[in-house]
């Protein structure tokens, strides 16, 4: 059920990913790439499909309008 899958990244993209991982405080480039994929998955999928709900974030953004609590 919780299988794994290897993705091959090489060349310039790998170098850039390594730089980002280092600058962003990630322990490894694998951890950084997993984080990026998780973020994209949560944006694409509905909450019922495993995506994360952004209701609270949206509410926070809208509260500055003054019209809502």
């Amino acid at each position, binding site marked *: 059920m919780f299988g794994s899958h290897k993705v091959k990244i090489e060349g310039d993209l790998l170098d850039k990913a390594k730089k980002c991982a280092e600058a962003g405080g990630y322990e490894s480039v694998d951890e950084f790439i997993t984080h990026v994929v998780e973020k994209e998955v949560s944006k694409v999928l509905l909450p019922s499909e495993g995506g994360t709900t952004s209701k609270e974030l949206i509410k926070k953004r809208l509260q500055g309008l003054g*019209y809502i609590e």
Partner: protein
Amino acid sequence: MPKKTRSKALLICGLFLLAAVALLTLSCNRARAAGGNDARMIVLGIDGMDPQLLDQFMQQGKMPNFARLAAEGSYRKLTTSIPPQSPVAWSNLITGMNAGGHGIFDFIHRDPKTLEPYFSTSRVEGPKHSFDVGSWVIPLGGSSAEQLRKGDAFWQILDRHGIPNTIFRIPANFPPVAAKGETLSGMGTPDLRGTYGTFSFYTDDPSASAEAVEGGQILPVEVQNGRVTANLIGPDNSFRKGSPPSREPFTVDIDPLEPVAKISVEGQEFILREGEWSKWIPVEFQLIPFFGNVKGMCRFYFKEAHPRFQLYVSPMNIDPSDPALPISTPSSYSRLLTDEAGEFHTQGIAEDTKALSDGVLDDKEYLEQARTVLAEHRRIFDAEFPKFKEGLFFFYFSSLDLNSHMFWRLMDPKHPGYDATLAAANGDAIESFYEQIDQVLGEVLPKLDSRTTLLVLSDHGFAPYYRSFNLNTWLLNNGYIKFKADADLTNQAPFVNVDWNQTRAYGMGLNGLYINMRGREKSGIVDPGAADALLHEIRTKLLAIRDPKNQLPVITRADLASEAYQGPYSRSGPDMLVGYNRGYRAGWKTILGGFPQDELEDNTNAWSGDHCMDYTLVPGVLLSNRKIASDAPALTDIAPTILAEFGISKTKGMIGTSVFSSGER
């Protein structure tokens, strides 16, 4: 030819020539009056100017310039939009269409597939790693912005006809649409965090609970050896684990005896006394080394030094001298304004109403901030207006709207939030802002000439907001919404307990009521063919509601989208627009899907005036130096009026007609 005959012929020729010149002059004057390219037009957009208050202040002699314009020119009530909310109303004005044409129905829209709300006029995407917006390259961790209003803006049509124009802070124009003229975005422009305003409040007072306020953040700090060390909060940094907000440290050194402190931020140092505001302080957030930074700016207010430390920091505004998101056309225009008139709020709703509602700022402190906003606008007006030579000059003022929202309670003893002591101190706040707008008009009137048309207008009027009606609670109590069998009533998250498989209608936004439609909503159950009958049933019941406190009708009209709108987007908004009686509005929690216990409640919030009601009860104003032919002008007439002044026909889809024309609509 005999001399006498030749003289007679010359005389006749001369008379013909004179007649021709006279005719030409007359026709030129007519062309100027009816629309020619040498025409000039000034439009002052005064958000929320109310005809009842304007009449009152004119009669009291407090608005001599408006009184003069009304007496020597024309003054009408201006029919507002359905519903009368600023994003909808200004979109009506901008496009000459109603919401069916421009697609903006409320401050808040919802995605039918997820029922998640979003701000109607623009979408600010969550942080991405990098992206382009036109010629803009936003650095890592920035946000993207998308304009959601449909249809051409009137200034884009002017552009196509070569008419120069300047459009200052018109709402519902973020990010600004492509334009040849100078435009600056207004309402709808987010702060640097992608919100519509999030202040920070730093205190060592243990009774101030962290993060318990709306529209802001309370950050507990410690005073150690007279020093506070804390962080300014910037945009989320998507390259850090968990995407935490970016931070920039600052320190506050408090004088042990005097109510004075030195604040140090990124090498900048400044002194504030208690009760004093800083100027705009630029802040640069480093998102990731070597990749990119984002620039913002904020103002500090030193509220209290002793015994408790209290420091307010404004929402982090986009820096107009180096904007992180597109806020003007050309992109250099916001920097030019900064050079000419100094730094200014770029956040769309600049007045920090939430800080007042939350009690972080008191009336006096909020008023200082609100007056600064107007002072900035007047500085820019004074820099820009003298440069206006040809074409169109549009300038927007937000002050009457925001301050009528916040200070109605102090001029109306019937308001549940009325306080005689506070009223004695600031009961004239709204009046003083009206007087300042009159002063602006006083600068414009002497500049008018025979080829210049002036329009002064507002998008809607104003009314008291005494009582809240919780539409979703009413729909629940009347069987249109059903809760799940295992509903957790202690969970107040929006719609969390709703059983969508049994729910037929729901409320979202300030005036919107939606049918849970099969094929449209994610779990829709009402067949489209049955929707009209259901809407009529709900409308009849809503119009029959009486407030048990005073027996007044709570809702005085309810417009079906099918009746109210024309255009391709007519069916993409709410199915019904709920029009509240004067004094009533959708409750605070119901707007995003909350279910307070009571259907009706007193509104004791500082936000005490409103306009999101029955549109016939809150008309705006329209004044001009020319004769307005229309007896009942509407916002949708303004774009055709502007175009007609420059000899341009209205475009397909525009439903209004020039207010100076007596022709049929």
